[in-house]
């Protein structure tokens, strides 16, 4: 899922300073699962903002909504009948959702209520960790199902570097060495042959470096 963290309330209040009527829009997708932008978070954030604004002597009207997904046009359209009745939309969906709202409603300022994080997993309740950078050319079949681009701090294709010590990466004592994990897994799969092969330079053109990406599936159009 796409993960995220709430923006500090002070930053949100500062963004809202020019406005007196807003829509606060959540999303039932990933951000609901990682509990940063769902219906419940909309409710809590709306109350917090209202209280803060009341305390500052300038009330704010907030319409609370939660869209099925902010990354699909049909759900975004559900806001069209009333969006222009408000001065701004504060969205707590991921960066993709916020931008999609912005481009559909050209006359309404869109404000981000969360900082979008990464493509990750829930390791345990309240803890998420990155697993994929969406680089567009997956090699997991060669690396024991563990991604060198994401799990190695240097994205090495021939790791581990000299900074791997007792399974821990040089960047921090809580960061496991991705290449130690790859090697452990290749060994258990009896696939160490994959390790000792020189790999070609990675083509980053399928990653963000090639510019904004697009997937077109002719069979679905």
């Amino acid at each position, binding site marked *: 899922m796409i993960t995220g963290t709430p923006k500090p309330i002070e930053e949100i209040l500062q963004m809202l300073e020019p406005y007196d009527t807003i829509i606060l829009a959540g999303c039932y997708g990933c951000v609901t699962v990682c509990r940063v932008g769902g219906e419940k978070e909309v409710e809590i954030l709306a109350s917090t903002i209202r209280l803060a604004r009341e305390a500052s002597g300038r009330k704010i009207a907030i319409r609370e909504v939660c869209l099925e997904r902010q990354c699909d046009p049909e759900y975004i359209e559900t806001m069209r009948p009333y969006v222009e009745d408000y001065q701004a939309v504060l969205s707590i969906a991921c960066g993709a959702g916020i931008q999609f709202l912005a481009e559909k409603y050209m006359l309404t300022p869109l404000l981000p209520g969360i900082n979008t994080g990464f493509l990750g997993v829930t390791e345990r309740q309240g803890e998420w960790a990155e697993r994929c950078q969406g680089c567009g050319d997956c090699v997991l079949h060669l690396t024991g199902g563990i991604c060198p681009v994401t799990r190695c*701090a*240097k*994205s*090495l*294709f*021939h*790791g*581990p*570097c*000299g*900074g*791997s*010590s*007792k*399974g*821990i990466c*040089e*960047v*921090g004592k809580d960061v496991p*060495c991705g290449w*130690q994990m790859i*090697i*452990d897994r290749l060994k258990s799969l009896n696939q160490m042959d994959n*390790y*000792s092969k*020189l*790999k070609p*330079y*990675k083509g*980053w053109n399928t990653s963000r470096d090639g510019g904004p990406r697009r997937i077109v599936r002719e069979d679905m159009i």
Partner: protein
Amino acid sequence: MKSGSNLEKVLAAGHFSVTAECGPPRGADPDVVRRKAALVKGNVDACNVTDNQTSVVRMSSTAGCMLIKEEGIEPLLQMVVRDRNRIALQSDILGASALGIRNILCLSGDHQKFGDDPQAKNVFDIDSMQLIHMVRTMRDEGVFPSGNKLDGAPQFFIGCAVNPFADPFEIRVPRLKMKIEAGADFVQTQCIYNMDKFKTYLDLAKKEGLHDKVKILAGVTPLKSAGMAKFMKKMVAGMDIPDAVIKRIADEPKERQAAKGIEMCIEQIQELKGMEGIAGIHVMAIEWEEKLSEIIGGAGLLPRPLVE
């Protein structure tokens, strides 16, 4: 001869080589480099110039190489893939060769979080293994990795680094083997303190015949004090300093510890020199270049041979 570098010639002639390193200054003053060069000169066959080591911004390695070259020392250019994409790497490889630099050490580079710009964007477009391959391809095939023809191939004696003390130990020799396949002509090791573990590593490498395919230059760093030893052991990932080594220097009174560190370093060089498969020594006297002559001379490695 692949590069015609002095280091390559010294090793090809069967001499036990000596390299040292020179960290460029955190400023634009060339005299800092020249002063270090004066301490290095005559003691080495080539001198590494580090490339923003520990991600702390310093004068560029290429500039440092040229400054020591002007002082009559053969430079060995360290190049990390942390800060440059493949376009900049290829360009800098060509530029360095054009300026007459003939040795290169291909490294990944410490993560930027250790430096003074932890918010920097890292690059790691290719890794150190692929950088070795890149230099080799350009030198031997006369083409860019893209396949386009070069207008004059760069000439380099290609080096890599290994850390026999990092984990997991079992892939350390296979990884060296890959670096040789990628094109490494010589290898400089991380500072060795744990001689037993290094011998195990070297035996495994020799079993694969790697010492015949690559010149192994053993890395040593003289300890200035017991405090330095403890700090390095604790703070530097992949640094293996046995307690017995620390005890030996810690047992000396403070004012005698530096001299003891040098004595231990000389002993170690002599032991390494006697080991089959070790082609030379790489002395990393960190900010202690003034002791190079004492260490290298003390190990009986002076004067350096003149090879044509």
